[in-house]
């Protein structure tokens, strides 16, 4: 009862509370968004085979590109006229830790089915190792097999979204005028692979324009396990520098991209972005804290005479301290409650205003976990206590005579 004497729904108290509401709301909202983004990336990474390494022709110092987004271009610099060949694959042969290494070609070609035409990405892969390289699963039919020639495994998007008539297993599509039988349809992945057509490389080389036998657009390498990936990638680089007779670092004409390293850098980038945004939100919390401190100082000044009265009728310094600390904690608590609500709203509204946290469908929806709510509330109360501590201490140390005389 006595503890509630300052907070009498004064406008000033509410304005102070608003400061905390915004701060806590921003922090909670941003953390929940960050968590959602990270969860979505993590779930994607979990689908990926982190033990795979891709070698592409060309070299760019900024290797942060995510390969395969919307095109069949697996990185590399097309202006540099460098090629990956059989020799490069052979050079990888002796490296410890490599399970498979196989060249791949790719291109965009006209694909027709049931009288309709579309330009789609075709990948020529080694049927023997391909199924081990990627964690692909068939929805129906089967994966490629070593004896296969003019057959294809198609992504779910190719099967059901490109053409008016759905493509089924054992149906025939026409690529660059050549008939190709569909032997398998992949499960939906939510990525570029849904619009991909996979064929045995020996057949694909005849269908893809400009493709040559023994020349690859990329070399896919699978390491024994995730732990050795980094070592294997480094060894590959060293080996290829020697086998491709590269003397000068500037002459380097190939790139080795480990999926694991990329995944790590994406995760790191995400968490540092969350941290950065969180820091910005924290600034508004600090402003809120200053607001509480300011209100409490004013309140102490305003209540000087009442503090004197309370001391006269038996309030100990500790009682006065507790009254003021409790009051600013209350401001923090009320602000925290509304702040958490605001944070929930922010994280719920973000997807609505088009800020999709995830690429593609099936991403995580940001939600505020109970732990985060408690964290937000505790943070607000803590800030209330901290910013109220100094004014409260000053109030408690007032001499009763002086306080009573104050007008």
């Amino acid at each position, binding site marked *: 009862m006595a503890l509630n004497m300052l907070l*009498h729904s004064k406008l000033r108290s509410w304005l102070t509370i608003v400061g905390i509401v915004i701060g806590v709301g921003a922090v909670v909202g941003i953390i929940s968004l960050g968590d959602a983004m990270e969860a979505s990336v993590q779930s994607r990474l979990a689908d990926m085979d982190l033990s795979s390494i891709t070698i592409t022709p060309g070299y760019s110092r900024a290797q942060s590109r995510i390969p395969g987004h919307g095109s069949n271009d697996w990185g590399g610099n097309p202006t540099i006229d460098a090629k990956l060949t059989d020799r490069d694959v052979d050079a990888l042969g002796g490296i410890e830790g490599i399970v498979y290494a196989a060249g791949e070609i790719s291109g965009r070609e006209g694909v027709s089915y049931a009288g309709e035409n579309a330009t789609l990405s075709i990948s020529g892969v080694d049927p023997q190792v391909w199924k081990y390289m990627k964690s692909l699963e068939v929805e129906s039919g089967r994966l490629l097999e070593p004896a296969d020639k003019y057959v294809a495994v198609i992504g779910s998007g190719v099967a059901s979204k490109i053409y008016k008539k759905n493509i089924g297993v054992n149906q025939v599509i026409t690529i660059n005028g050549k008939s190709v039988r569909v032997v398998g349809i992949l499960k939906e992945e939510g990525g570029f692979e849904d619009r991909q057509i996979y064929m045995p490389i020996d057949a694909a080389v005849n269908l893809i324009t400009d493709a040559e036998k023994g020349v690859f657009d990329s070399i896919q390498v699978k390491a024994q396990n995730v732990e050795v990936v980094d070592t294997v990638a480094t060894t590959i680089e060293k080996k290829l520098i020697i086998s491709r007779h590269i003397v000068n670092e500037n002459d380097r004409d190939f790139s080795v991209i480990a999926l694991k390293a990329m995944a790590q850098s994406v995760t790191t980038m995400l968490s540092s972005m969350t941290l950065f945004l969180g820091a910005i939100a924290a600034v508004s919390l600090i402003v809120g804290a200053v607001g509480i401190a300011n209100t409490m100082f004013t309140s102490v000044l305003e209540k000087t*005479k009442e503090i*004197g009265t309370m001391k006269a009728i038996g309030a100990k*310094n500790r*009682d006065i301290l507790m009254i003021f600390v409790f009051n600013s904690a209350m401001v923090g608590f009320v602000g925290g409650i509304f702040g958490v609500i605001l944070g929930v709203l922010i994280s719920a509204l973000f997807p609505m205003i088009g800020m999709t946290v995830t690429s593609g469908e099936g991403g995580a929806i940001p939600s505020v976990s109970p732990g985060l709510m408690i964290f937000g509330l505790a943070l607000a109360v803590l800030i209330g206590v901290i910013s109220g501590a100094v004014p409260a201490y000053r109030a408690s140390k007032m001499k009763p005579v002086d306080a009573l005389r104050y007008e």
Partner: protein
Amino acid sequence: MHANDAKALKQSLNYPLYTEKNTEAYEVNCPTSIRNNAAGSGRASLIKLTNVWKIYQMGEVDFAALRGIDLEIYEGEFLVVLGPSGSGKSTLMNLIGCLDLPSKGKVSLNSKDISGLDESELARIRGQMIGFIFQSFNLISTLNTLENVMLPLEFQEEDTTRARKRVEYLLEIVGLSDKKQNLPSQLSGGQRQRVAIARSLVVNPPIILADEPTGNLDSKTGSYILEFLDGLNKKEGKTIIIVTHDLEIIKHATRVVYLRDGEIEKIEIREKSDFGE
């Protein structure tokens, strides 16, 4: 409104402050020795000031508000400290009320020197021994009548149920049972002072210390407040100390201390009182 206040107070004087039931229900805080003596058995010294000086530093010069005061206050007295403004009577009240410590000299309460005590000890003594009544009532503006009266008991960490019982009883005595939920701003001056009186009595202290209690009231309400205090003195044996410049108050006093320029000018013993030096 004022007429009603006065009427209510007049009626309330007929109540005993502590019925048997309430004495039983309310036993905290007041030292037994004082309570036993409070019946008015004699001349036990309650407060003793020995050569008390209070010196304020005002810039370069020192100003002595009190100059060597010697005063003994006995249980059951109705003492009025009278003096013009600037005579040092407020300073004297602060010292008697343990709100301040002397610069020199000794203030003893219940034969115990208070000058060596720390702030929380002083707060405890104030809370248990002294009921304050101020000229401007000094109610807490954000608390209602009930909460204001209850406040001293909260500082004494009294059990809430017991405290509430006590508060309701006292509000009945001062005739404010129907104003429990009112904030001070919703009360008249007389009503506010009655809340203040109830608050000063709630811990059942042996001493009531009032600083110009009628200063902000019209004369009629003021005189009834004084009658109420008089009743407390006569019927309950409370020691009443009033600091004022209002000559009217003297007629209730058993002893009057005249203060001038920080010194005791004279002490007058009045009526059939048997107190005095």
